[in-house]
């Protein structure tokens, strides 16, 4: 598929279905998107102690994320500098050193090469091979925000904070609930026969699917109200690198709204100290609470509040997930449960249970989502189907052919709209198309213009 033509179609909200399975586009994604964007690797709470490590990938690059003996977080390419063997073949553990199984080159958990058998006999010592100057490779850029460890393979990429832009306002609502921060459990990992973008788009803004896809979860009474239909009262926001969906809460009072969705008083008190006036205004006065969200390209969040016991009040949960591409048509999902470190134990237990019931490998929401995404991916492979334009224009135009106006007085950065719309899916795919055509992503508005004389006026790129 021609990336420039695809980009033009995407700007119009007309998505050729082949973007969800085309191997050529996926190759471009590898070269121009995933090698240039900040990628989430791990959360600091996964490696609390010196020597703790997890192994994570950016597509086919394997990295060890380790806390060294000085408690610094290091990101090390999991490849011996000698013959390229993986120096760590576990997923997680604790190690002061990583020793290559092939020739026993041994690296400290800072990455530094400290052991090289027969250094003198084989190389003539330092004069022949500078052991003292050799380390495991590290990605050119690493960054941590709110305990989340990221890496970027592009030395010229903007900083992590710059890349996130205005989305960091919303990130606090998921990942900043106390001075000590959040802790994670997991990830659950599983493979789905789906293109990675479908999940990323869905989480970024598809409040429209909830009433139908997830009707079964409402029918079994997992929620205190028939919430699916209330999705249309929520706002969709996009700011900086990401966007998300919200639910409308019943009052204009922050504390009451937080209690309504199940946050106990002591947690709300800590959140009070962490969130800005504007963040509290979004949840209080404006009455919108974050639900699903995506940071472009492939990191998503979800926050919801089901019942975890018969007749009981609801309890919120937070999940963080990565849509890790394996190929154009296969994705590994890594899904973590997230909770405030300081939450009372009963809350951690109930919130974890809420997560498992709703999302993740066995989650009742996620089960139906994945069936949809697998099916879309599979059917988009056809010679004919791949060229068919899927309609992603929701919210782009009314009878006057103008964009629906953003919500006035929205307390956060970026733009928000109340009601159903595909603003965020378009924003995400626009960034994707920009990246694939070799451009830095921008937050341009929808490029669609009013029909002129019965023709669709295409925006010049």
């Amino acid at each position, binding site marked *: 598929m021609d990336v420039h033509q695809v980009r033009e179609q995407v700007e119009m909200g007309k998505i050729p279905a082949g973007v969800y399975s085309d191997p050529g586009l996926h190759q471009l994604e590898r070269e121009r998107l995933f090698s240039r964007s900040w990628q989430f690797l791990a959360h600091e709470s996964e490696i609390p102690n010196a020597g703790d490590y997890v192994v994570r990938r950016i597509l086919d690059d394997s990295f060890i994320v380790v806390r060294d003996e000085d408690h610094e977080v290091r990101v090390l390419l999991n490849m011996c500098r000698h013959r390229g063997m993986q120096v760590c073949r*576990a997923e997680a*553990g604790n190690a002061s050193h990583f020793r290559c199984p092939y020739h026993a080159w041994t690296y400290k958990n800072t990455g530094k090469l400290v052991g090289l058998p027969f250094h003198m006999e084989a190389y003539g010592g330092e004069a022949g091979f500078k052991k003292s100057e050799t380390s495991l490779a590290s990605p050119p850029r690493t960054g941590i925000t709110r305990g989340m460890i990221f890496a970027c393979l592009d030395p010229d990429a903007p900083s992590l904070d710059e890349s996130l832009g205005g989305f960091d306002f919303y990130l606090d609502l998921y990942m900043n609930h106390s001075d000590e921060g959040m802790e994670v459990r997991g990830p659950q990992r599983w*493979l789905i026969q789906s293109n990675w973008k479908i999940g990323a788009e869905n989480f970024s803004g598809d409040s429209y699917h909830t009433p139908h896809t997830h009707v*079964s979860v409402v029918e079994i009474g997992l929620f205190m109200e028939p919430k699916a239909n209330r999705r249309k009262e929520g706002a969709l926001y996009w700011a900086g690198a990401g966007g998300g969906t919200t639910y409308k809460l019943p009052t204009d009072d922050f504390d009451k709204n937080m209690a309504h969705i199940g946050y106990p008083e002591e947690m709300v008190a800590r959140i009070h100290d962490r969130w800005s006036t504007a963040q509290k205004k979004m949840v209080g006065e404006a009455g919108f609470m974050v639900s699903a969200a995506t940071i472009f390209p492939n990191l998503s969040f979800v926050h919801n509040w089901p019942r975890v016991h018969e007749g009981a009040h609801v309890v919120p949960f937070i999940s963080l997930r990565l849509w890790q591409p394996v190929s154009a048509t296969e994705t590994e999902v890594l899904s973590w449960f997230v909770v405030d470190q300081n939450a009372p134990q009963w809350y951690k237990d109930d919130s974890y249970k809420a997560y*498992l019931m709703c999302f993740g490998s066995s989650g009742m929401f996620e089960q139906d989502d994945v*069936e949809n995404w697998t099916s879309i991916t599979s059917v988009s492979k056809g010679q004919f189907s791949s060229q068919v334009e899927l309609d992603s224009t929701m919210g782009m135009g009314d009878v006057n052919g103008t964009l629906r106006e953003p919500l006035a007085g929205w307390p956060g950065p970026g733009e928000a709209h109340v009601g159903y719309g595909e603003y965020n899916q378009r924003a995400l795919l626009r960034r994707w198309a920009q990246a694939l055509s070799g451009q830095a992503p921008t937050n341009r508005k929808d490029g669609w213009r009013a029909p002129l004389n019965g023709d669709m006026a295409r925006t010049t790129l």
Partner: protein
Amino acid sequence: MNEHIPENLDDAASVDAATHYEISSFLSNEAALLDAGHYTGWMSLLTEDIQYRMPISVTVARGDAGAEPLGGMAHFDEDYYSLGKRVARLEGDHAWTEDPPSRTRRFITNQRGFFGSTEDEYLAYSYLLVFRSRLDVRPPEWVSAQRRDVLRRVGTSLRLARRDITIDESVLRTQNLAIFL
């Protein structure tokens, strides 16, 4: 969470042949209900204090064996309430992921039965291989696991009071766990 049911037990505590047969029949009957999609029937085999748990399997070095990394995450960590919700959903008309339903076949082998900690309980260990085929042309999925069950005698029949599942994959290759193992 409670302690895990140990992965192995002393053979001395093995049940007699008649009890072994009873346990084996229970497991086969249960598999038949699940394969036929009779979820309510399956639910009736559970005690109300059921614990149903499947931790994630994490690839760790030998030296780290026994550790519970990644915060003790599970794929399933269920009680009677949450299993009941899952069953109610599957028995409804709108659980799209199982409509059309998967064709599943549960193969249960390597069964061992042991006397439990109380007179009315047995420990039943078994291997499980599930074949799952969805729709027409999708490649089938296999799930391999070990089960460690506590079966309790209630009246004249057995009920499942606890199931610990060890899944043999770190990264699941089945698209979801809309099936019970």
